[in-house]
């Protein structure tokens, strides 16, 4: 492997063969780490521009209403207000969307969800803007919102979220997207008859939020050429631009985006939020406009994780071999499509889990409703389904009287197996081994009732138990996730690498449009450049649209895709430099490489310092990295080579439950994951622990509570995410089985633990309480029968 390349044999090379310890496989410090810890990092909300105005949106208090009139005259009269805009002021296309352009940039005649933006204000002070927003008069005809599955699927009775003639998706009725899948003999009565045991279940997943800490924010600066420069916290600069330009009626090259400091994303920044709004205001007023959402506005300003209702039926033989799985997954996509089609695709193609099942029937659909829009969130589609199929595995194991880990291992996929989509798993898939590894890890010590520390108990310092009611439980789970965009999408990445001498040293510069959202991509890019170019000094160019697309920071794909592009560009620069040397010095050696700032060869020793060879010239090359092509799934059968790569994580959860009060403390959450190759082991462990923690949130506390289409807890007072006292030790066992198709053999790591950890925690709570628990998050009411 090139990452650990050393040149052996030649004594005179001993000192220079040391590959940089900060190359791949090392864990150098993040360039942004210290600043963030000290509170000095500039986030997008910290930006300031002379003469700038503040933008603010008026949002609908109703989930479904017709807009009879909008009167902006009083708002315009507020001193300090520069502009009040409605959809009528939009110069270009009025709609945008990631996959389906069904979302108006500002509401047109109707609102479809609580919090939909209707009008915009720009003023010289945020307080002025807020007051002006309150002076906009909107007359509504309030309609009964369409919010449940039953209502959505009966549009004749309850109405349409989008009128039938408005459909821009392939869907119909209130269905935004659907995907079926049949493999083997499907599920028929004859197939059912082959099973000795059948278990059925209905499972629900609540609406989780990404809960990133840095609210949506950005600064739009009008440019002299009539275009606009936007400094923005986002996940994908180029797709933002692609959606913005038509609305602004500008050619793409006049919409220039630069990444501003991103305070977390988790999928919530994959859609546009304030991008178009800030640019509309900036272009209209000719002044820079900054928009920063408040925390409550943030809850309305981005999409959430699709809530799901899932029905599963599994059949198995007496000895635990799965015979069939019949699944239906209904995802509530809310008012607009966002990423719903991809979420449905993942749910349908991964929703039976990492198991060999000869006969599968599956249907996944996303509804249009008047609930908040749902879209991308870490692990989408796979997270919801994993709670369903892993709950079923436990149920089946109980029915068969088998150990739940053993049942999973008996049916686990491995390399060479086929998914129900017909896609062969052509890379390592150590599912059974991952399960074994978490099972074999030592268990945490039992509760010590003699020397109790209340902080370690459910309720902690709330002092609800001194040992009373506490029962320990253990649960296991394993999950599967795809890496990269699927179903025929060519989400390529671009990287530009420049090598030149600065201050007497060879320095590499890496320029991509990758959104660093906290995942540590900038660290990894520098590591790759060090390893490939044999330099120590690497600078990372600010991410912007001057370079080609890097695709999205999502789908666990950035190290694979943009890391792969940096590798390609760096290799090209290396070859160019070596060629230059060959031309100048007439080297004949076949094994020339770059190490420790020198051009070296095993057979020729040190050929020349890179500084001398480069001289005043800079080598500056750009490369694109495309993953292997995939194809869309067949609409009816779900067959197709749809995914780029699979990733797997297994978990063991140990919980203490106060069974009388229904309070839970996760004592330990163990993870084992195959990462292919850990380019930065510290970051990888961080991703796995972070992913597990987000899954813990979904298991026991995180939910946007929506009643009749209205969000009830748009604040961190009532949308609870785990604190450090809720977060247990998370031992991580990392397996590195290289994927032959991936750069360095690596595997995307960010999402798999978010997929798999939730069901392990619920399984542990079931183990402690004996309750069925068919819904996450599990609330104290579920555990005490007081719902």
């Amino acid at each position, binding site marked *: 492997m090139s990452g650990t390349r050393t040149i052996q044999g030649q004594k005179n090379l001993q000192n220079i063969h040391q590959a940089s310890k900060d190359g791949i496989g090392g864990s150098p410090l993040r360039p942004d780490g210290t600043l963030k810890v000290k509170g000095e990092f500039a986030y997008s909300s910290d930006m300031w521009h002379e003469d700038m105005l503040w933008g603010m949106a008026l949002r609908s208090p109703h989930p479904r209403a017709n807009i009879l009139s909008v009167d902006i005259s009083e708002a315009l009269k507020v001193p300090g207000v520069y502009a009040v805009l409605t959809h009528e002021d939009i110069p270009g296309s009025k709609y945008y969307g990631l996959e389906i352009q069904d979302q108006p940039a500002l509401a047109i005649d109707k609102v479809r969800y609580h919090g939909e933006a209707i009008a915009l204000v720009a003023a010289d002070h945020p307080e002025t803007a*807020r007051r002006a927003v309150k002076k906009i008069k909107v007359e509504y005809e309030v309609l009964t919102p369409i919010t449940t599955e039953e209502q959505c699927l009966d549009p004749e009775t309850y109405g349409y979220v989008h009128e039938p003639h408005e459909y821009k998706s392939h869907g119909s009725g209130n269905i935004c997207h659907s995907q079926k899948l049949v493999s083997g003999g499907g599920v028929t009565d004859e197939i059912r008859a082959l099973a000795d045991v059948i278990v059925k279940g209905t499972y629900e997943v609540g609406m989780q939020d990404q809960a990133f800490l840095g609210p949506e924010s950005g600064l739009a600066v009008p440019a002299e050429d009539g275009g606009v420069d936007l400094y923005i916290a986002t996940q994908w600069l180029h797709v933002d631009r692609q959606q913005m330009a038509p609305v602004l009626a500008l050619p793409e090259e006049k919409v220039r985006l630069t990444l501003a400091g991103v305070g977390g994303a988790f999928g919530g920044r994959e859609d546009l939020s304030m991008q178009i709004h800030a640019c509309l205001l900036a272009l209209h007023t000719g002044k820079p406009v900054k928009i920063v959402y*408040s925390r*409550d506005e943030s809850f309305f300003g981005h999409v959430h994780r699709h809530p799901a209702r899932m029905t599963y039926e599994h059949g198995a033989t007496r000895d635990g071999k799965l015979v069939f799985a019949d699944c239906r997954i209904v995802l509530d996509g809310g008012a607009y499509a966002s990423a719903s089609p991809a979420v449905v695709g993942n749910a349908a193609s991964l929703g039976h889990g990492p198991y060999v099942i000869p006969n599968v029937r599956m249907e996944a659909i996303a509804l249009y409703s008047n609930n908040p829009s749902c879209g991308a969130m870490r692990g989408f589609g796979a997270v919801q389904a994993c709670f369903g199929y892993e709950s079923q595995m436990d149920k089946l194991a109980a029915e068969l009287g088998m150990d739940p880990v053993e049942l999973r291992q008996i049916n686990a996929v491995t390399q060479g197996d086929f998914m129900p989509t017909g896609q062969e798993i052509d890379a390592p898939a150590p599912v059974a081994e991952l399960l074994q590894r978490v099972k074999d890890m030592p268990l945490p010590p039992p509760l010590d009732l003699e020397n109790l520390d209340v902080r370690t108990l*459910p*309720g*902690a*310092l*709330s*002092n*609800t*138990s*001194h040992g*009373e*009611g506490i029962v320990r439980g253990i649960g296991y789970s394993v999950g599967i996730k795809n890496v990269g965009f699927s179903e025929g999408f060519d989400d390529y990445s671009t990287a530009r690498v420049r090598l030149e001498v600065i201050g007497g040293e060879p320095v590499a510069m890496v320029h991509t449009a990758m959104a660093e959202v906290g995942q540590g991509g900038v660290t990894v890019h520098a590591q790759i450049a060090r390893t490939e170019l044999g330099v120590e000094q690497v600078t990372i160019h600010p991410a912007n649209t001057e370079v080609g697309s890097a695709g999205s920071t999502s789908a666990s794909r950035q190290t694979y895709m943009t890391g792969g592009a940096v590798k390609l560009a760096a290799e090209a620069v290396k070859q160019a430099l070596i060629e230059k040397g060959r031309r100048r010095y007439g080297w004949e050696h076949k094994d020339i490489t770059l190490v420790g700032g020198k051009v070296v060869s095993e057979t020729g020793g040190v050929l020349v310092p890179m500084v001398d060879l480069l001289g005043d010239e800079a080598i500056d090359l750009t490369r694109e990295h495309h993953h292997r092509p995939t194809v869309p799934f067949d609409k009816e059968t779900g067959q197709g080579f749809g995914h780029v790569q699979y990733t797997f994580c297994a978990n063991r959860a140990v919980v203490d439950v106060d069974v*009388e*009060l*229904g*309070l839970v*403390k996760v004592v330990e959450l163990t993870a084992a994951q195959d990462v292919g190759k850990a380019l930065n082991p510290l970051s990888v462990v961080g991703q796995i622990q972070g992913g597990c923690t987000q899954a813990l949130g979904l298991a*026991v*506390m995180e939910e946007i*509570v929506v009643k009749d289409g209205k969000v*009830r*807890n748009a604040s961190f*007072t*009532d949308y*609870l995410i*785990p*604190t*450090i*006292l*809720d977060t247990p030790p998370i031992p991580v066992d990392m397996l590195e089985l290289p994927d032959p198709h991936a750069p360095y053999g690596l595997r995307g790591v960010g999402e798999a633990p978010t997929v798999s950890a939730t069901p392990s925690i619920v399984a542990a709570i079931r183990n402690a309480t004996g309750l069925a628990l068919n819904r996450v998050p599990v*609330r*104290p*009411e579920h555990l*005490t029968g*007081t*719902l």
Partner: protein
Amino acid sequence: MEFLRPATWDEALAAKAEYPTALPISGGTDVMVEMNFDVHRPSAILDLNRIGDLATWSIDGDTVRLGAAVPYSRIIDELSGPLPGLALAAHTVGSPQIRNRGSVGGNLGAASPAGDSHPALLAAGRDVFVEAASVRGTRLIPIDDFYTGVKRNSLEADELIRAVHIPVADGPQQFSKIGTRNAMVIAVCAFGFALHPKSRTVGTGIGSAAPTPRRAVEAEEYLRGVLAERGLWESGDLLGTEVIQRFGELVRDAASPIDDVRGTADYRKHALAVMARRTLTWTWNDYSKQIRSAA
């Protein structure tokens, strides 16, 4: 908006008399949040942070006089002995940062049904008084009369809270709070309990399960009766499950909670019964140990 910064208590009272709608600010952990959320647009803010003695406490005989601005972190560090119930409640408030700023005076000023001081103060006995002052003079408001409605208290427009008078504990006290995570959480419901061996009474306080913090008076009376009739104060003997159970039920029945986004009414009632049983058991075990070791 006016920003008033009196240097002395008398100046503060004069300012409050002159600007009765001025919003006092102490730790600011409620005030600043509400201003950020645009809940308040006060005409004036009255900053009490320059008045040093508001952040002091003293013990006079059997009573702690707790300055309105003493932060929770100091209550935990300095007053766990004389005020164990309040110190346990203080432990459950917010995060270290909030405990460094937030105060009992502010908790009383806000008078939220979810304020964690309230159950502990209610349980601490009938000699708990809020010392309220104005240019017109000082009055001691019994804690039972202090909470008048959701986020309403019995302060007059020109009054400020100077201190709270709380009897030094003469028996074990406990405080329990339910939250759906293990730290930094607003109470779904809470319960404070205290044994008062000298007066042969017990104290209770229910939080987040009624429009105001309130006592479970029938539960107190029931237990007082049982303890007296059976001579348990003297013997320290076991209470027995029936008594504990009944006490829990009476506490539960004293609550009138609602369903909201934090929890259901049924859960709150259920949890109150459990917390009442447990806190009674813990305090009684401590008390009987004391009796036995004294015997």
